[in-house]
C-alpha cells in the first residue's frame, strides 16, 4: 500500500500527512511534486492542507491548473481513492472533482480548534471502519471552511448519502453543517477537519485514525483488485 502526498508550493500539512501515514499507520508514503504529470505507482492520493500557491485569487483556484491535478483527475476517474484535507478539499471543489465551494468562515476569522463531528455515512472507503452516527473529535484549522452549494446540490448530496461528516457545533457557518463530502463514485472525499493531526497518541487524540485506517485499507484493496 503506497500513498502519494501531493506537494504544491505553499502546502504545509504535507509532512504531517506523510508522518501519519508512514509512522502512525506504518504504510508507504511518498511526496509528489506539483508539476509532475504522473502519480507513479501509488494506490491512493492525499491532497494535504496548506496554502497552495499562496491561495491567491481563491483557495485552490490556481492549484487546479497544476500538472499533477490532471493526473489526480485521471486517477480519480479510474476509481483510485483521493482524500483532500482542508486546502486539499478546497482544491477538489475548484477542480470540479467535488461539488460546492468553500468560502470565508461566517465570522471572518481563522479558527483552530478541536470539534466534534458526526460520521453520517460509513458507506465510503474513508469511513467503512467507523460506526454510523459515531462522534469523532478532529482538529479544524482554516479561514475558508464554510461549505456552500445550491439547494439542489445539497439535497442531492443528502439523498445520495454523500455527506460523510457533519459538525456537531457550528464552527464556520457551513450549510447543513457539512464538514466532508463524497463524489458520486464515492472514491473522492474532501473534508475540512484534519484527521492527520489526530493520528498520534502523543497528540492526545487518535480519532483521525478512524478515517485514515479506512482510507489505507481501501487503498490496499484497490491495489489488489
Amino acid at each position, binding site marked *: 500500500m503506497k500513498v502519494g502526498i501531493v506537494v504544491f*508550493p*505553499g502546502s*504545509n*500539512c504535507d*509532512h*504531517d500527512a506523510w*508522518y*501519519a501515514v508512514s*509512522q502512525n499507520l506504518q504504510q508507504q508514503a511518498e511526496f509528489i511534486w506539483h508539476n509532475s504529470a504522473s502519480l507513479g505507482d501509488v494506490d491512493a492520493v492525499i491532497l494535504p*492542507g*496548506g*496554502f497552495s*500557491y*499562496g*491561495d*491567491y485569487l481563491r483557495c485552490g483556484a490556481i492549484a487546479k491548473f497544476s500538472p499533477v491535478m490532471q493526473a489526480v483527475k485521471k486517477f480519480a476517474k479510474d476509481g483510485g481513492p483521493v482524500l483532500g484535507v482542508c486546502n486539499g478539499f478546497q482544491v477538489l471543489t475548484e477542480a470540479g472533482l467535488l461539488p460546492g465551494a468553500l468560502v470565508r468562515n461566517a465570522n471572518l*476569522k*481563522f*479558527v*483552530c*480548534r478541536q470539534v466534534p463531528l458526526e460520521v453520517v455515512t460509513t458507506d465510503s472507503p474513508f469511513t467503512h471502519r467507523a460506526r454510523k452516527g459515531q462522534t469523532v473529535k478532529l*482538529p479544524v*484549522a482554516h*479561514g475558508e471552511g464554510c461549505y456552500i452549494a445550491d439547494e439542489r446540490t445539497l439535497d442531492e448530496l443528502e439523498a445520495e448519502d454523500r455527506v460523510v461528516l457533519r459538525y456537531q457545533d457550528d464552527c464556520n457557518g457551513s450549510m447543513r453543517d457539512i464538514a466532508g463530502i463524497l463524489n458520486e463514485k464515492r472514491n473522492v472525499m474532501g473534508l475540512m477537519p*484534519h484527521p*492527520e*493531526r489526530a*493520528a*498520534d*497518541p*502523543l*497528540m*492526545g487524540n487518535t480519532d483521525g485514525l478512524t478515517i485514515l485506517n479506512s482510507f489505507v485499507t481501501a487503498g490496499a484493496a484497490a491495489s489488489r483488485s
Partner: protein
Amino acid sequence: MNITPDVVAAHQLTPSEYDKILSLLGREPTLTELGIFSVMWSEHCSYKSSRVHLKKLPTESERVLQGPGENAGIIDIGHCLAIAFKIESHNHPSFIEPFQGAATGVGGILRDIFTMGARPIAVMDSLRFGKLDDVETGERNQRILEGVVAGIAHYGNCFGVPTVGGECVFEKSYAGNPLVNVFALGVFRHDEVFYGKASGVGNSVIYVGAKTGRDGIHGASMASAEFTEESKAKRPNVQVGDPFMEKLLLEACLEAMKTGAIVGIQDMGAAGLTSSTCEMGSRAGTGVEIDLQYVPQREPGMTPYEMMLSESQERMLLVAERGRESEVVAVFEKWGLDAVRIGVVTADGMLRVKDHGQVFAEIPNRALADEAPRYNRPYSTPLRTAPLDGPEIHSRDLTGDLKELLASGDVCSKKWIYEQYDYQVRTNTLAGPGSDAAIVRIKGTNTSVAMSLDGNGRYCALDPREGTKLIVAECCRNLATVGALPIATTNNLNFGNPERPEIMAQIVECIEGLAEACRFFEVPVTGGNVSLYNETLGTPIFPTPVVGIVGTLETALPIGTDFKRPGAEVILLGGLGTPDAQQMGGTQYAKVIHDSLWGRPPALDMDYERRVQATIRELVRERAIESAHDLGEGGLAVTVAECSFGPAGIGAAIDLDSELPPELLLFHEGPSRILVSTGNAERVLAAARKNTIEALIIGVTLEARVTIRNRKRILVDSRIAELAGIWADSLEHLLHDPVLVNTNV
C-alpha cells in the same frame, strides 16, 4: 544634494555622530552613505544606548554553540541536534499599521531562524495593548488588538509554523504604544548550521527572494524615535508581508544549503541590503561590492539611496562559492524565486555600492557594523510614580472578586486570540496555548523542547530589578511545571526614551536583574532585542522586559494543568507565602479590584525557587502527579479555578489554615508555588522534604464546584460552569460588548 545640518537631523543623527562619520570616511558622505549610516547607527540596529549594559549578561554555558551577535542564538540539545531561537519587537509598525506591522514582525523573526539553517518549529507572541474598555482609547485599542492578532495569524498560519503560546496584557501605559514581541524557534543538526559571513574573496554575492520596492524605507530609524502626531504620516514606512513568498524562501534556502555551495547567508531585515552586506562583510573581515542594476526591482526609477534603505520583505543575501553559483540558482528557480548575482566578496573590507558601474557609496564595513557610537547614557534612579502604600484592602464578596479577576483582560482565557492561530500545524505541539509552557516534540528523537514567554510591566514599574528577576523565575518555573529543564534565554527589552536618566535607570536595573537571575538559574542569554523610545507624547510605557526561556524534556504525553478525577489530593508546593499589603500593590487584585498600583513586587528567594522547580520537575518526570499548574497572576484562587476548567469538569474543595487576611491569602502573587493534584500524596511530600521546601495538602478534588475555606470560613464558593463561562468568554465580550463583562449582572 548638499549634506546640511537639517539633512543630518532628518536622518536622526546627532551633530557629534555626523562628526564621527566625517572622521571615519575622511570626507563628506554622499546622501546614500548618510542614509546607510543613519540606519546602521540607529538605536534599532546598533543598540548604542544599551550595548555597554548588555555586556553584563551571562552568555555562555556548555550548551551554547552561538551566543549574541549572530542572527539568532544556538543551543545544543543533544543527539547532534541544536535549536536556534530569538525574539524581535515590531512595536512601532504595529501601532501605525497593526495587521502588516505584526505580520512582518513574524516574517522577520522567522527569517532570522531559517537563515541559520534551522527549520522554524514554533512561534510565540508577547502582546501588550491599552485597555479595551477605556473610555477614550478603548475602541482604538480593540482595533489594534484585532489587527495584530489577524496579522500574526495571517503570516504564521500560511507559512506553516505553529503559534504555540505567548501572553497578552492590557494596561493603560500601552495605549499609545502597543508592544508586539515575536519569538521564534527552529531546530537543526549541528552540521546544518549556517552563519552570516561573507567569506572567501572572489565568491559571489547573490540576492534571493522578493523584489525590492520602496516600502519600509527608514523603518529602522522610525523604530528608534518617539511617537508624535506626524508618525501617522509614516504609514508608508511599514512594510508589507507575503507569507507565501516566505514559505517558498524557507524551502528553497534549506534545500540550497544542502548543495554545499553556500558559504554564508543572512536575511535582509532592518535596512535590508545595507545591513546584510556590511554585517556579513564585517563578520568575515572582508569587503562586499555590489552593483544595484542587478537587484530585482518592483518598480522603475529607484535611486541607490532607496534601494539600500528599502525594507521590502522576504529577501535574503547569500554568498556562494565561486563557480558553483548555478547549483544555488537552480534550487531557487525550482521554487520560482529570483536568485541573482549582484556582487562579489573583496579583500579591501569596504562596502562598495555601485549602480551601473558608478560608485554611490564606499564605506568600511566595520565602520558601519562595529564602529557605531556607544553611549554610556547618564542614569539616575528609576522613574516611579506609584506610592508605597495603597488603599485599605477589604473585600465584601471574595467570590465576586474572583469572578472579576477571571473576567479581566490579563487573566481571562485568550481563546479568542489563539484560536485564530494554527497552533498544531507540523503535528508536534504536545502542549499549546493555555499550558504553563508550550511543548513541541522533535520527531524522530525522544526529545521535546519546552518554551515560555513572559513579562510583567507592573512588577517592573515598582522595581525594575526585582521585577525582572521575578519574570525569569516565572519562566523557569513554567518550564519546570511541565517537566523541562531550562537551558537558555532570549529577551526583548521594551522601554521609553533612554536619553531620560530616570528611564535609562530602569534599563540598567532591568538588565542587571536579568543578568543576576539568568546567572543564578543557569540560563545564559543567547540574543535578544532592545526596543527604546516607546513613548507617546512624552508618556513612557512601563519598563517591560519580556523574557523567553527554552528548556528540554523527554518526549511524553504532558500531564496538563487540569484536575482529572474526583478524590485526588490537592497539594500546594511552596506553601501559602508571607505577603504584606505593600506586596499586593503589583498584583492583578490591585489592578482589577482597586484599579491601582502601589508598593513593591512580591519577594523572591531564588534559592528556594530553584528547589521548588527541582521538586516539580522530579514529580512530573516520575508521573507521581495528575496535574500541575504554576501560581501566577491572580494568585491561589485564580489557579484553583483554572485547574478546574479542564474537560472533565473537576473542581476542588480547598481548606486552608492561615492567619493571613483572606484577600492576601487568595490573591497574592508570591512566587515559587505550584498547585498539584495526586493520588500519591506521600510521594509528593517526600520529594518536597528532600528538597527542603514546604508542601501543604490543602484539599481534595471533586465534581462541579470550587470552594475555598479558611479555618472553616467560606471564602469562595461557586459552580465551575459559572466561573468557566466568565473566564472563557470575557475577551470576546470585552471586544464586542464591554457592558456584558460586568460580572455582577
